[in-house]
């Protein structure tokens, strides 16, 4: 199931995930929970969003056919982190979802159609006919959010990351 094209997509996705984790490295629990922008999200919420709405949803549910009942029921619940939950727990959850996703990707052909087709996609004006499109979508999502974190990290403590 491994092809040069798939390996390239896997490496690029791994690179953006590492950037997400790298740009957060060294932030304190308070900094990870600090809302920096008017819209009020914080780094830990974004990380949980990536774990639940990107890695888990796209790979475990859409590609792998697992149930959708894992998702928090409250509006934007994927961005809401219980104040008592340690930051390390959310970081661990993201790494764990990545490991699940990688196992599913390894066992699936790029041309394989998804196990689950979400009626929401049509409302978004998008279609995801195969694993390739889904990997590209998660690559883009992770890259955009890595860009958000680059800028937020600078606003929190001035640390800059090498710009592409």
């Amino acid at each position, binding site marked *: 199931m491994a092809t040069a094209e798939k390996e*390239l997509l896997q490496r690029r996705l791994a690179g953006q995930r590492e950037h997400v984790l790298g740009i957060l490295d060294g932030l304190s629990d308070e900094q990870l929970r600090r809302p920096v*922008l008017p819209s009020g999200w914080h780094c830990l919420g974004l990380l949980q969003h990536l774990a639940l709405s990107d890695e888990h949803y796209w790979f475990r549910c859409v590609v792998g056919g697992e149930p959708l009942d894992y998702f928090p029921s409250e509006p934007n619940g994927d961005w809401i982190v219980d104040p008592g939950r340690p930051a390390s727990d959310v970081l661990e959850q993201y790494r764990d979802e990545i490991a699940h996703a990688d196992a599913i990707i390894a066992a699936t052909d790029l041309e394989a159609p998804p196990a689950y087709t979400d009626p929401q996609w049509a409302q978004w004006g998008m279609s995801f006919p195969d694993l*390739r499109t889904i990997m*590209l979508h998660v690559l*883009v999502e992770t890259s*955009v959010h890595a*860009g958000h974190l680059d*800028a937020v990290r600078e606003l929190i403590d001035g640390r800059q990351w090498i*710009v*592409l």
Partner: protein
Amino acid sequence: MTDDHQLRHFLDAQRASVLAILDGLDESALRTPVVPSGWTPLGLLEHLGGAERHWFQHVATGTADPAPWPPDPSEDPDGPFTTNRPTAAVFDFYRKQCARSNTVLDEMPLSTPPRGRHNQPMDEPVTDLRWIVLHMIEETARHAGHLDLARELLDGRTGLGPR
């Protein structure tokens, strides 16, 4: 849908997002740095135009059309992305470079090895045009994320662009 149509669709969506995020910002906002490192939205757009030209012309084909302006000796190549050029000229530059990139994609299969070279060390070898398209999807998406933040800090608008 073939693989090469899918890749182009994703690249076009990122470019459209960049332009949608900038749409409606006035002259002053476009030239306002929002984070300490000092890049500006317009400077970032010029950088993205330069990235299209570099990757799809210099690296992919080994040659590039003349730049629309001569090198400015006062520019610090290691400094933040800013620009003194007129706004309309920078937008025009970006759109033209994207169109030029698309002609390269029309003419060369994704499996074509690069005819030129990237000027800095990369974390992995640039194998072919497919690699370059993926890189530009990531680079444009990352910078769209930077611009999202800039836009929210400048006038509160969020969630712009197709993506």
